[in-house]
């Protein structure tokens, strides 16, 4: 496995001199291979972004380990050559006082100092065309002169300039229009086909479902269900997953109330500590119902 999270925990210290702490992520384990898209779903504050940031080395882990290609994450030049991230708000991802193509310049400064200008321009052009952007249209402009979709694609192009193997995409489409959103998703799908691993973070279940092979459902920092997307969506075992699915508005379907669970499937099927494998690759956690021990 390319990326492996093992019992990852994150505590934030808050208050004076770190007097208190909140646990944002609790004992999360999953993995991700090349060419695979894993979607991370959960309500606001469930710890999705925190996991993404830990993988990107932007926040240190407080417990457990994250390894990339067998080595623990070490934020730095080498790591970022292979692992990159894109965030929710394309507008705040660009420094508003500089031109948008400065994001390429930053990469050149660190990774491709020796590449001559022409060669670099060619590479940038190629990479822009890869994300279906016209270099002439986007280069030399300020972020505010470009649309959200263009900016998100610029960021993807930037990541592609590096030899990346893993992309952490944290709600990259939630600020986009319905139609632009689908374009960006389709682009990710193409990249995946070229062997890129993607951690797709979202709270929109329909989007997670569109791309991902596997889905991880988070609640309050813990994984409640994890498995192949069709299993998780088709046969949700955890009451929370069911609730989420029931709340999603669908075009051709009336809102239904979640099918109530009378017993905790985890305990019913004899789970003892940790996640339990309920089907092939399909894991579930205890529902924490009144009947649970």
């Amino acid at each position, binding site marked *: 496995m390319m990326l492996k999270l093992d019992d990852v925990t994150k505590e934030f210290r808050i208050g004076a001199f770190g007097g208190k702490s909140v646990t944002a992520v609790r004992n999360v384990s999953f993995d991700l291979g090349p060419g695979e898209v894993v979607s991370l779903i959960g309500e606001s504050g469930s710890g999705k972004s925190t996991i993404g940031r830990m993988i990107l080395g932007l926040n240190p882990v407080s417990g457990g380990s994250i390894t990339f290609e067998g080595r623990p994450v070490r934020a730095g030049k080498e790591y970022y050559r292979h692992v990159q991230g894109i965030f929710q708000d394309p507008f705040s991802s660009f420094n508003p006082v500089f031109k948008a193509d400065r994001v390429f310049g930053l990469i050149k400064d660190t990774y491709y100092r020796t590449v001559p200008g022409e060669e670099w321009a060619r590479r940038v052009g190629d990479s822009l065309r890869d994300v279906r952007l016209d270099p002439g249209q986007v280069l030399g402009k300020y972020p505010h002169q470009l649309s959200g979709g263009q900016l998100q694609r610029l960021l993807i192009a930037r990541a592609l300039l590096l030899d990346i193997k893993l992309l952490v995409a944290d709600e990259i489409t939630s600020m986009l229009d319905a139609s632009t959103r689908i374009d960006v998703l389709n682009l990710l799908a193409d990249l995946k086909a070229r062997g890129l691993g993607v951690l797709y973070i979202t*709270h929109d279940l329909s989007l997670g479902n569109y791309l991902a092979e596997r889905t991880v459902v988070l609640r309050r920092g813990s994984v409640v269900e994890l498995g192949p997307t069709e299993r998780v969506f088709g046969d949700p075992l955890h009451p929370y997953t069911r609730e*989420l699915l029931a709340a*999603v508005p669908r075009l051709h379907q009336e809102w239904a109330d979640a099918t109530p669970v009378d017993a905790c499937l985890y305990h019913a099927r004899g789970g003892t500590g940790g996640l339990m494998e309920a089907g092939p690759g399909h894991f579930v956690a205890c529902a924490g119902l009144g009947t649970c021990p």
Partner: protein
Amino acid sequence: MSLRVSELKVYYRTLKGEVRALDGLSFGLADGEILGLVGESGCGKSTLGKSLIRLDGRMRHAGGTVVLDGEELPIADDRRMNDYRFHQVSLIPQYAMSALNPTRKIRRMVTELLRSRGVTLDTAELESRMSQVGLPREVLDRYPIELSGGMKQRMVMVVSTLLDPSLLIADEVTSALDVSTQKAVARALLGFRDSGYVKSMIFVTHDLALTHHIADTIMVMYAGRLAEKAPADVIVKAPRHPYTRLLLDSLPEVGVRHTDRRLTGIAGSPPSLLDPPAGCRFRDRCPIAGEECAEDPPVAEVAAGHYVACWKA
């Protein structure tokens, strides 16, 4: 017919000229009806909402009329409009999270607000409405920051509808909430209509799927104009305007995988409202545009209650 908007034009004054955010919009809304308003970002949804209750400093009423329950609303006259606000027309703003004065306990704020409108607070009524949306009465003695986003959202809903307005404008009230809260809030809105707290409602959102669950009628706007308006099911199942169709095509749904069905977006971007092109505004992005589209398409009623602004529809 409780609300009748005709040829409404509202422009924003900017440095570079006037942004024609609403450029001749006409539609009607019946008593008890919920109108879902959808459209791409920047198409003028919020502008419409604001126009019906309070123009902000940069907005200019450039023409058209709004008639509510047989009376014309003086929308350009801030002072006269005040009599209608809250009593006739009310609003749940997009910024519900920050709409409550942070330094007043909610009870006090509500009391003061009502008193300023010459109404005394009926606490029992207030509490019953709160319980209807699942808010405990203790909430009244809290400060807004002590409430979660969803609670604030629901509180604002209750406050805005306290005087049983005839028309309620709900602008993107659910977009900041997670799915489960979103569902609860949407249902509460339906409940309000059903309990008669509000007669009719305009529900603004960009989420077609969500609208479909709430609205009786859906109006699709494009670039400051009406594109299509029809009963909710008709819009979803049998859209006539190419824009509506393309919009529906780009919506992923639970169960749709790109490997199974690759959705497509709408190429291009909407025109600038600063100086919108003549003719059909969707022409540049329209896959089926033709010669005639150089002319403004009229809004035609193609079926009962189904209005479309397209030559090809």
